[in-house]
């Protein structure tokens, strides 16, 4: 990848702090838990900063609601240059569909003109790791998983063209910003991009019990519909089904 005027996107997510959730009658209650940037998003920013060099223009893309904008601005303070919040006229439930999420992000990536996309390998709330592969599939770009090894990450160095790189949330993070950077970040404009996304028309017919599964483990390993769908989409894309 080029080292000058390189444009990268970081896919950012805001999640509830899982270590502060209340347990009520045996159920996790997240409603009172504090919001924070997902660790994978912060690690992805550091990857983007290191990968493209000093001339990299980094755009943060996020589906986070306006009230979480302040958290996203921390990424501006830590080295990102632009922040685009994705919105949709769809209702919250539909907008949470993994394919809708990925589709919206892809539209943001195209607006940003990014040559590479960095995201956490999995978020601390959902933990499915579906977004990166789906975004790669929709863009038709390779999907690369980077792993932390001794404080540095490896895996994407061999990528020479556009790619979606998923990084370990436990990997290196950007240094703490100073107050001036925070102050500037809170004065910077935040762009809003309303995207038109189509909900996938998929009929759910059930999950094949594990004992009856044959080959195709990757697709059928998921126990949740959206996980299975996301894997399916990636594989179909790889096999050029569509």
């Amino acid at each position, binding site marked *: 990848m080029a080292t000058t005027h390189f444009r990268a996107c970081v896919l950012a997510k805001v999640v509830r702090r899982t270590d502060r959730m209340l347990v009520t009658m045996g159920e996790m209650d997240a409603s009172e838990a504090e919001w924070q940037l997902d660790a994978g998003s912060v690690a992805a920013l550091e990857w983007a900063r290191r990968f493209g060099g000093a001339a990299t223009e980094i755009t943060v893309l996020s589906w986070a609601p306006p009230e979480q904008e*302040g958290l996203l601005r*921390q990424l501006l303070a830590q080295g990102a240059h632009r922040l685009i919040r994705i919105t949709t006229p769809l209702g919250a439930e539909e907008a949470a569909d993994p394919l809708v999420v990925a589709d919206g992000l892809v539209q943001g990536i195209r607006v940003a003109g990014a040559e590479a996309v960095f995201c956490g390998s999995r978020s601390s709330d959902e933990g499915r790791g579906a977004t990166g592969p789906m975004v790669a599939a929709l863009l038709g770009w390779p999907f690369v998983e980077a792993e932390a090894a001794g404080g540095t990450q490896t895996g994407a160095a061999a990528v020479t063209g556009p790619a979606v790189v998923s990084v370990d949330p436990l990997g290196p993070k950007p240094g*703490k*910003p*100073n*107050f*001036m950077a925070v102050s500037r970040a809170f004065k910077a404009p935040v762009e809003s991009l309303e995207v038109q996304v189509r909900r996938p028309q998929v009929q759910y017919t059930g999950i094949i019990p594990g004992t009856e599964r044959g080959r195709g483990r990757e697709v059928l390993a998921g126990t949740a519909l959206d996980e299975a769908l996301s894997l399916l989409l990636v594989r179909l894309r790889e096999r050029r089904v569509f």
Partner: protein
Amino acid sequence: MDFTIPQEYEILRKMVHDFVVERLDPISQKVEEEDEIPPEIIKEMAELGFFGLPFPEEYGGGAVSKLGYALFLEELGASSACFSNLIAPHVSLATSSVFIGGTEAQKQKYLPPMCAGEKLGAFALTEPNAGSDAANIETRAEKKGDKWILNGTKNWITNGSIADVVIVYALTDKNLRARGGITAFIVEKGFPGFRVGTVDVKMGLRGSHTAQLLFENCEVPEENVLGEVGMGFLTAMKVLDGGRIGLAAGAVGGAQRLLELSIQWANTRVQFGQPIANNQAIQWMLADMAMEIEAARLMTYKTAWKYDQGLKITRDAAMVKAFASEMACHVADKAVQIHGGIGYMREYPIERAYRDTRILKIYEGTNEIQRMIIARDLLKVGH
């Protein structure tokens, strides 16, 4: 009324809180023993922007409002007082003097390195015979050619022994004094005739240095007259108004920390078979501490807010300075009482806080002077 703290300031608060917990608290006892803040900690503070928070970006500052600055000092005040005592006189007094009273050329020259923490500032007003009666200073400045010659002694100047830039207030017309006879000068370390005298040994605030500064035919270039000749007293009073908010904020932060330590201790210290927190006598002390802290906090935030609106704050600043400093002393006293014997021991931070807190009622204008300011304003305004 909206009491919501802007998200930007919540983030700043968390940054300071994390720094206090991760970097300052672990070394507080060492600083107390060695009477020195490690240089690497000062460097880290500078990198984070501690030294220039409330000044505009064009001068290298953080462009944070007075409320944001108060929140910052509240968090910093939770640690050993020496840390805020390094920052606040530099920011609230010395750098603010340049910002409030300086010419554009002086701001361009001095503010960027001061905001970056590359040049540390001190504010030199107090003298052996002029403490509360600041208009009665005896340090004189006389114009000779293109220089001003300063002669006199300044006492108990915080950061005085380590400062690179000292804002010195001197008499330029003994007949006018406060009404145009006092001028502020920017004196740099190394100016001929300027030297540090005795470094004071204090009751508390170890790690923070106050010193006597001596001016013996000290030569100051004409361009280092801060602003205009004769405007020094006005600049000093404006600076001190703003500075009192910072002092109050630090007092609130320190008292809050003592309350938290007292609650922890009350819940864990068992006497007569139960935690002492079960005793009403302890509960009432905790409640009194919390009430006073909250009142001081709200006064601090309101005064900072008024400052940010450009409203006159002289009475408010005097009230919050006096109230918050007295609150901090009450809270420190109760914290020692709740902790009992261990609260009196050197190895525990309560004893240190008790000593450190006492100065709050004295410096940046004694509380008696604050009451004079409040009463004068009340009698003038009528309510």
